[in-house]
């Protein structure tokens, strides 16, 4: 019976249909690669939740109302949800209340927000160029957005090799003197995710998508970068702090000397483990929390899956608790700075020092909070960042009190004392 086994199918040959470069329609690619396509489509309907992640679109603002305060004056205080699978990108980006679509509004949302949401982008970037793409408004771009994320965001048609498709990533690597064409296959299994799972900001009136990596991708290097160009996303109400918002820095966090990264493990090893279809083996394209299929995601390397999943629980709980403490400290600081700022006699120099610490402290907290593994991607690094963030927040509060010459500003535990917790802004 060993003879009449299905032959080991080589998933890469032979192509049934020719795929043209940057083909946006994943269904066409899918004819050549049914396994990858069928698993990819599962990302549409996943809705299982895990303790801190998973694929259910719950509201982070309702889960943790502290974030309503921390993002006050910024669209994230209105609507900020748990992310879902790759095929939901268009639905979700178009549904978020964070968008400002009123034509002519100086803050009107740009097409930049589509950068990481569609397989139509590679072709459009080639046609319009990065700046041309981003210069358009969100509304102007919408008609071009026919497909969510798809094969073309990660693969080169024909060869199927992994490639950098986002020009901003290409630029960011160049700024560090790196050329992704020289990367190994194993490196690409991580770098391909950096097309999107990275911290970013927008440059100039054309809102050109840029990654703040010129000094490197470690937290202190990114903070320095923003300090040097004096960038800020919004001004915090009452404190007048020029704030920074962090966004899903999975790549920066994971590659900052984490256990797994140092050991040569790639994003795809855990999030796209190999699965068997009869005799054929292929990478699951149903990308989601590895805690939903740990036998596959971790079991290939860890013989005792229950042990490692138990570790994840411990690591995440510890990070979660430390993260909440940082939030409480920042809220205490904000309240003090607001009081000091409204005090005409307050010492301006000390007040500015307080603001600068508030700015850094909240960005460092956000860098952890906006990262989506609740600490697992790099536990020690992340706990260190939270320790620093809390320390800075406390010092910011002290400076505010000194500025106002008023020790009454040193009240702590303000959030816990609130009778009613804040609801998402309108």
């Amino acid at each position, binding site marked *: 019976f060993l003879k009449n086994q299905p032959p080991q199918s080589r998933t890469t040959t032979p192509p049934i249909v020719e795929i043209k470069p940057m083909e946006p329609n994943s269904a066409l690619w899918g004819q050549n690669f049914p396994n990858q396509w069928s698993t990819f489509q599962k990302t549409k309907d996943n809705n299982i939740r895990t303790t801190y992640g998973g694929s259910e679109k719950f509201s982070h603002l309702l889960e943790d109302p502290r974030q309503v305060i921390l993002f006050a004056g910024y669209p994230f205080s209105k609507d900020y949800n748990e992310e879902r699978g790759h095929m939901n990108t268009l639905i979700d980006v178009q549904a978020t209340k964070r968008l400002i679509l009123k034509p002519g509004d100086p803050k009107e949302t740009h097409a930049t927000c589509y950068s990481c949401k569609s397989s139509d982008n590679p072709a459009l970037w080639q046609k319009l160029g990065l700046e041309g793409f981003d210069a358009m408004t969100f509304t102007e771009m919408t008609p071009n957005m026919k497909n969510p994320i798809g094969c073309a965001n990660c693969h080169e048609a024909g060869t199927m090799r992994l490639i950098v498709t986002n020009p901003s990533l290409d630029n960011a690597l160049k700024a560090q003197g790196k050329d992704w064409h020289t990367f190994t296959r194993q490196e690409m299994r991580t770098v391909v995710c950096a097309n999107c799972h990275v911290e970013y900001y927008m440059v100039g009136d054309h809102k050109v998508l840029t990654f703040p990596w010129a000094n490197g991708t470690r937290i202190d290097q990114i903070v320095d970068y923003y300090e040097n160009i004096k960038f800020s996303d919004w001004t915090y109400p009452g404190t007048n702090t020029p704030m920074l918002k962090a966004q899903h820095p999975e790549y920066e966090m994971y590659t900052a000397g984490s256990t797994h990264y140092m050991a040569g493990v790639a994003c795809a090893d855990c999030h796209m483990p*190999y699965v068997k279809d009869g005799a054929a083996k292929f990478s699951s394209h149903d990308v989601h929390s590895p805690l939903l299929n740990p036998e*596959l995601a971790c079991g*290939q390397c860890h013989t005792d899956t229950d042990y490692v999943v138990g570790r994840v629980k411990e690591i995440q709980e510890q990070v979660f608790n430390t993260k909440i403490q940082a939030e409480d400290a920042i809220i205490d600081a904000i309240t003090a700075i607001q009081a000091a700022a409204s005090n005409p006699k307050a010492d301006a120099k000390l007040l500015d020092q307080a603001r600068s610490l508030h700015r850094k402290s909240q960005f460092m907290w956000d860098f952890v909070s906006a990262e989506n593994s609740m600490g697992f991607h790099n536990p020690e690094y992340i706990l260190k960042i939270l320790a620093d963030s809390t320390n800075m927040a406390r010092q910011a509060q002290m400076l505010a009190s000194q500025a106002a010459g008023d020790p009454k500003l040193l009240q702590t535990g303000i959030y816990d004392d609130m009778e009613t917790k804040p609801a998402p802004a309108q």
Partner: protein
Amino acid sequence: MTKYLVIAALAVAAISLGLFVYVTGAPAYAGTDPATCNNCHAMDSQYENWYHAGHAQETTCVECHLPHDNPISYWLAKGKTGMHDVYVFSTGQTPVMIRAKEDTKQTIQANCIRCHQSTVEDVVAGAQPFDRHCWDCHRSVAHGARGISIVPYQDAVLYPSK
């Protein structure tokens, strides 16, 4: 009573052995050639990793995976596990991750000690039982790195990069 049990056991053994040989139709399975185990791609990664680990020169699969205290238990086990493997495989029930069963681990441990007695008897001896697996520490000795591997076991074909 026990007499009947023994007879029953032997009977079962005989039948299963017969069945095993018949189903596989390959007397080769009575042998000890690791390549035979590898006829089955379910065994690919173990074969691969065994081939590249320290034991390949000296030690075949069955040296570790079948009891060697006496021929009877050897053939009983060979029939039992062999039947099991073939059954699970040919009925397409191959699990996501193949793991050694508890009694398999005991068999293996006994074999480690059988061959390495002179090395380990001082540390295995003692007032309390030696209550851990050799491969808790020698995690790479049999099938490549264990718990620390950075190369998923099961895809030597698709994933030769490391």
